[in-house]
């Protein structure tokens, strides 16, 4: 396949390339949602062993899924400007080595989660790996413009993993956190896809802006942002979170809506990328404030 390229670039392979293979920035955001999920599941402190071992187990799984994604998307990655420097696409790490690396991480993850945490969490984590690395990357991504909507479920599962790691049961509130990440994914990803439309078209990936046009995608971003804004009120309305959460979330949502409306009605150069950048800040702040609110609940609402 890319033998020529791989020979040219396969200079010294460092641990940094393997780290890059795990998409550390994405994993960090997902781990934030997972760890917040752990803390939200209990009024007190998360047991230290669950916090440490659970986090390692989940992070390994996410890293493994990301490595599989690098291997499967090798061809696509090498033609897209955003991803052409990925270690497998560039030939720094051979697909075989990457697969071996991913398999090692997955086995270690399953071992840690099933022996030290619980089998429910291990099973759900496996579902996440399969969902992202196989169903999304190998099939959905190439099959339908709804790829990231359906595949988003795999990316939305970490808060549930965190929760079940502590409680060993699926709580409706945990599903609420999954729902939030799930409805956040389309506006987040489509904002990027608008910016990278030509890249995706070149790689033959049926992303929404490629199949249905940029204008349609912008409308979809706006609708999903509204849906997301409504969903993020549920933690307050169901009594899981309090006033700190409500106040901060309303501001975060107002800013996201502002970006989405601007993107649709009064676009300026680079606005799609700014929307994408903000969506990351949004999710981080939202989960941090969930955590803060959890421990500093204002008692005005009494219950």
């Amino acid at each position, binding site marked *: 396949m890319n033998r020529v390229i791989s020979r040219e670039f396969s200079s010294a392979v460092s641990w940094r390339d393997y780290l890059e293979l795990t998409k550390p920035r994405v994993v960090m955001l997902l781990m934030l949602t997972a760890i917040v999920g752990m803390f939200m599941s209990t009024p007190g402190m998360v047991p230290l062993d669950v916090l440490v071992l659970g986090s390692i187990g989940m992070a390994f799984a996410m890293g493994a899924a990301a490595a599989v994604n690098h291997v499967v998307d090798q061809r696509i990655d090498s033609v897209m400007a955003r991803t052409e420097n990925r270690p497998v696409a560039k030939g720094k790490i051979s697909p075989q080595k990457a697969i071996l690396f991913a398999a090692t991480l997955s086995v270690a993850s399953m071992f840690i989660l099933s022996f030290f945490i619980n089998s429910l969490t291990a099973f759900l984590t496996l579902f996440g790996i399969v969902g992202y690395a196989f169903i999304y990357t190998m099939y959905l991504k190439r099959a339908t413009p709804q790829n990231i909507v359906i595949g988003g479920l795999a990316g939305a599962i970490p808060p549930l993993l965190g929760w079940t790691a502590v409680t060993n049961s699926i709580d409706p509130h945990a599903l609420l956190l999954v729902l939030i990440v799930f409805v956040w994914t389309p506006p987040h990803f489509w904002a990027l896809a608008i910016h990278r439309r030509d890249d995706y078209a070149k790689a033959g990936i049926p992303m929404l802006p490629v199949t249905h046009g940029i204008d349609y995608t912008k409308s979809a971003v706006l609708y999903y942002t509204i849906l997301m804004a409504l969903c993020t009120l549920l933690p*307050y*309305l169901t009594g899981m979170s309090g006033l700190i959460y*409500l106040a901060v979330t*309303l501001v975060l949502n107002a800013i996201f809506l502002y970006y989405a409306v601007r993107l649709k*009605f*009064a676009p300026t150069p680079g606005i799609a990328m700014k929307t994408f950048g903000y969506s990351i800040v949004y999710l981080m702040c939202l989960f941090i404030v969930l955590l803060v609110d959890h421990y500093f609940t204002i008692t005005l*609402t009494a*219950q």
Partner: protein
Amino acid sequence: MWLKRLSIIAVVLALCVVALGAYTRLKDAGLGCPDWPGCYGHLVVPKSSEAVSNANAAYPERPLEAHKAWPEMIHRYFASTLGLVIFSILFLSFKARKSNPQLPIKTPLALAILVVFQGLLGMWTVTLGLFPTVVMAHLLGGFTTLCLLFLLAVRLHSSPDPVQNSGQGKPNMALRFGILGIFILAFQIALGGWTAANYAATVCSDLPICQSGWQQHVNFEEAFKFWGHGIDDYEYATHLGADAKITIHVAHRVGAIITTLYLGSLFIWLLTRNGISSTIRQAAVAALAVLVLQIALGITNVVMNLPLLVAVAHNGVAAILMMSLIFLNLSLYRSGGIKP
């Protein structure tokens, strides 16, 4: 008891200060006195011809216009009186708590801090040449002061909050929807303040959103730029293009539709529930009436091109709507929610 009486006086006074503030803005009198705290260096608006010529010599770019200086000064007199009243309330609260430690102290303390900050915002409004962000913050600070005073007065005039023990672990859904309503209304009031501070109230004279084709005239970047303009006089918002003003106005209209739908459904939903107490029912009816009045005033502003009195009333009734919503929420809080 003086504390109770004073709390009522303070609410009425604060409502006057808010309305006078709106009047000052709408008369374009915010820079009626270009200095602070005095007016052209005087305690009252200069009147004698000698004082007037001195004033005009000191501020050649802004000669004295008595009909603009007076609204500004009256607003300042009322506001400083309110400040004194609030500090008296704080003092009396400290004293009265020696015999009755149940009395609220956090609210008077917050009010004292807030009113000082409001004074500063009032000063910056003048010294920064009606910088819109400061003008809007000054309006929001005024509304917050009024609402906290109202909350304090209600609490002082009723028995202490009963202990909450109904429905343990079950959230008080009605209250949570009500508090969400407070945030939505606060946001809409901020948009209204932004519309006023940027002289955007008259750019759209059609209902429900704006003149047809407004979609081609939006400029969010300019409309919601909160700092960094680098100019020192913002009167009449000449730094903004028509598109930016249209965007600001449209935001307030869209906000009005959302707020009306949300609050209207909330009040009607509460009224159709079984088992709500008469206090909640009355509060919901009152809030609904104020909401209808506020929409009528808003529409009148659009149709009649912002008559001064209607515009001031639209501001004042916004404050009353917020207070009625707060009262409704307090009733919901005390009842522990709606019994199924």
